[in-house]
């Protein structure tokens, strides 16, 4: 019950901030001064808040428990992604003035058709990313209230689309920044407490685990013991690092910065904030290996962060700690999935079906949010057995093999053509989603094939880049390409 209460409070607070958060200033001068100060810090917290998803809060600890400490590479990849973002795209993207990736494609290549293609890929990535979020919410609600998994998933869908409909994302920057703090505090405080509480023996056990397979403590990521840990690790790092560039909801956050320089500075602060956060999931995974090894056998490792405090600390305090973690996990779900749903709904109503209707633009957005949530819930129901981090990894892989080449080549290579970009996008999207689907739906491949299908980035990303470059070299770049590129780099 404590858990449900904590989640309820969190939702209420988020809604209040979302709807009334901008009631800060009474007069225009006050406001303008305040808004200049908002700048980098809060903006960076908002980006980190939207980025730290259920995959980070629940999935990372779960996968660490299950697959071994090689999993920590994922956290490194998630964070390192922002190095690539800051170095390659944040500044130019801000200068372009484009809000979404489809906007950028239209700006750079001047073709409405490529806008539609990008809109469709946004949908694929967003849904791949949303399903694990809904799975995380379902799992958390199941743990704190005992309701079946599907009730939790449906409830999560209702909460998130409802909160968007009543205007809960109107001051998105403030909500997301608040959620970052919630996540950090609610994950960090129980983690620190647990570390102190369990005593020196358990701590020693956690650092030098006994009775685990040797592969568990190998610092490489192996998928289903396929026997190619180095390839799997590289592939995953490639996907997460380059995927962060291509994630549609990440890139649109830099639009908020007043200038390109500020956008880059925001990116640097994001790296620090993410680095701080990712210290803590490891604690749950390592302690879980000692205290709750039974989760591995029941294939419920994604729940370790929520279960562990209750098992380690008996009584009321334990349930309070559990409630904190649960609320933190729910905040992760809420912020990420509302950001994703808005990006998805924007794509649905603006890029794919938008433009012509004279009535109901507002209701069209709401309709698109509802439709997006409905499909995500529908897809999440059968996804209960899939690891959260596997699913998120696929979203990153698709982003890395589609939008990453588009943005990087679009920004740095004036010769990119519409045809080249389109064929690269199609090739990247088809191969990456195809591999993910094959990996999810089929079983019993040999070792190498398993890795190549489950972590497709190592071959799909180079393939997409190569396709874009090869096809572009055979054609003429669109009129005004030089000017468009120059604008991206001119200070």
């Amino acid at each position: 019950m404590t858990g449900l209460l904590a989640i309820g409070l969190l939702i209420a607070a988020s809604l209040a901030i979302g709807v009334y958060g901008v009631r800060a200033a009474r007069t225009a001068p006050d406001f303008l001064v305040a808004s200049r100060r908002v700048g980098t810090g809060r903006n960076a917290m908002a980006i980190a808040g939207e980025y730290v998803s259920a995959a980070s809060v629940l999935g990372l600890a779960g996968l660490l428990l299950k697959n071994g400490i090689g999993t920590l590479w994922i956290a490194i990849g998630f964070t390192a992604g922002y190095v690539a973002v800051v170095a390659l795209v944040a500044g130019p993207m801000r200068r372009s003035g484009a809000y979404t990736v489809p906007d950028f494609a239209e700006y750079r290549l001047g073709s409405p058709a490529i806008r539609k293609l990008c809109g469709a890929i946004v949908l694929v990535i967003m849904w791949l990313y949303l399903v694990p979020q809904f799975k995380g919410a379902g799992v958390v609600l199941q743990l704190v209230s005992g309701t079946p998994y599907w009730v939790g998933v449906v409830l999560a869908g209702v909460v998130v689309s409802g909160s968007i409909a009543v205007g809960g994302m109107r001051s998105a920057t403030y909500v997301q920044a608040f959620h970052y703090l919630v996540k950090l505090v609610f994950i960090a405080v129980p983690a620190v407490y647990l570390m102190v509480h369990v005593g020196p023996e358990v701590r020693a056990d956690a650092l030098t685990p006994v009775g685990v397979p040797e592969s568990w403590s190998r610092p490489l990521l192996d998928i289903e013991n396929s026997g190619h840990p180095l390839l799997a690790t590289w592939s995953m790092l490639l996907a997460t690092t380059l995927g962060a560039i291509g994630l549609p909801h990440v890139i649109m956050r830099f639009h908020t910065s007043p200038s390109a320089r500020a956008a880059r500075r925001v990116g640097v602060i994001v790296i620090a904030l993410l680095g701080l956060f990712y210290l803590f999931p490891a604690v749950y995974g390592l302690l879980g290996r000692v205290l709750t090894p039974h989760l591995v056998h029941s294939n419920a490792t994604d729940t370790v962060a929520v279960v562990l405090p209750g098992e380690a600390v008996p009584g009321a305090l334990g349930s309070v700690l559990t409630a904190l973690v649960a609320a933190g996990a729910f905040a992760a779900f809420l912020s990420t999935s509302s950001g994703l749903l808005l990006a998805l709904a924007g794509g649905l109503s603006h890029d794919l079906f938008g433009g012509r209707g004279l009535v109901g633009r507002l209701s069209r957005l709401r309709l698109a949010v509802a439709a997006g949530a409905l499909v995500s819930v529908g897809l999440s129901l059968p996804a209960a057995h899939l690891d959260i981090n596997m699913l998120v990894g696929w979203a990153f892989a698709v982003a890395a093999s589609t939008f990453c080449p588009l943005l990087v080549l679009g920004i740095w290579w004036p010769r990119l053509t519409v045809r080249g970009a389109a064929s690269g996008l199609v090739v990247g999207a088809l191969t990456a989603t195809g591999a993910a689907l094959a990996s999810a739906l089929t079983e019993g491949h040999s070792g190498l094939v398993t890795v190549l299908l489950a972590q497709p980035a190592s071959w799909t990303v180079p393939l997409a880049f190569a396709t874009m470059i090869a096809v572009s070299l055979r054609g003429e770049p669109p009129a005004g390409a030089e000017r468009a590129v120059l604008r991206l780099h001119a200070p």
Partner: protein
Amino acid sequence: MLRYGLRVEWRPWYPARRPGSLWRRGSASSVDTGAGATVAALREARLLGSDLRGGLHGSGGTAAARRIRRLLDADAVVLADLEGPAAQHGSLPPGSEAGALLDEVYARGEALRQPPLCAAPLLVADELAGCVIAAGEVAAEDLSEVAGLVAEALDHAELSGARARIAAADLRTLRAQISPHFLHNALAVIAAHIRSDPTRARGLLTDFADYLRYSFSTKGDYATVAAELQAIQTYLELQSARFDDRLEITVRMAPEILPVAIPFLVVQPIVENAVRHGLEKKAGRGHIGVSGYGEGTMCVIEIEDDGVGMDPELARAILAGSGPRSKGVGLANVDQRLRTVYGQEFGLLIETAPDHGTRVEARVPRYRRGVVAQ
């Protein structure tokens, strides 16, 4: 004889049943006169119109010449304006004197046939504007019809250009217009403060200077929401001094929309309208609220006042441009410019009723190609 103007009666102007002509591929054997052929002809006419959207010298000029050449089944087609040939498709037979023919057509103002060439004048809005020359077996009658079509397309292109110029002129008028009313009031209120409160007067004068600089700035057609907000702030400072601080102002703006580019002077006229028509006539304190937030890919800006409001019918008339001259010229202009920039569905939304205040909402995409703040 003038072959120009809207024809009420439609005669097929395309070469009927000529072997090798365009319509054969759709209708297998001999149904050239059927609905399929008509539709195909209409489509060709429409596409010709879109080719010529940029005028004869535009990017579609050659495409238009090619289209006409296929229509007439000619060997070559030249489109010329009064300065000489502008676009050409196919090569003219050697020895043919297109230049001389052109001069002749311009001198006589009618279609001429000098085998192997045939020429017809382009009469745009009853004025001689150019000439179509076709080489090959082309009937003068057919060519004249095509010339009429081209002339109409050119007229159309000129009209849409004029529409954009009118919108730009409207904006200039709006800038120049910052109501004399307001200038007078602002100076009067500053004068009134000079002796009693020199510091305030000085501040107001600075505001006034800032406001003028923004309104007169000619840097471009777009500004960021933040810049527009700054202009509103200075405007409202001046107004609230005039209202003896009866005016209460609230600004709620989500920081993420501050860098969004919007057309220049879009919010300020709405605020001005709220002050002049909503609050000036109201006794006692008045409140005006400006708020903005992002909604997916949209940026929403709302201006609310609790003034005297107006009849919804009047609001509708104002947006339609048929309202009384003294009222809401600014609103109609803003509405018109938003529609020109973003498309027909992006006009203003006005909610109002007598004695219940007014709420005006502008909802625009956060990004639109070409909309960049300077």
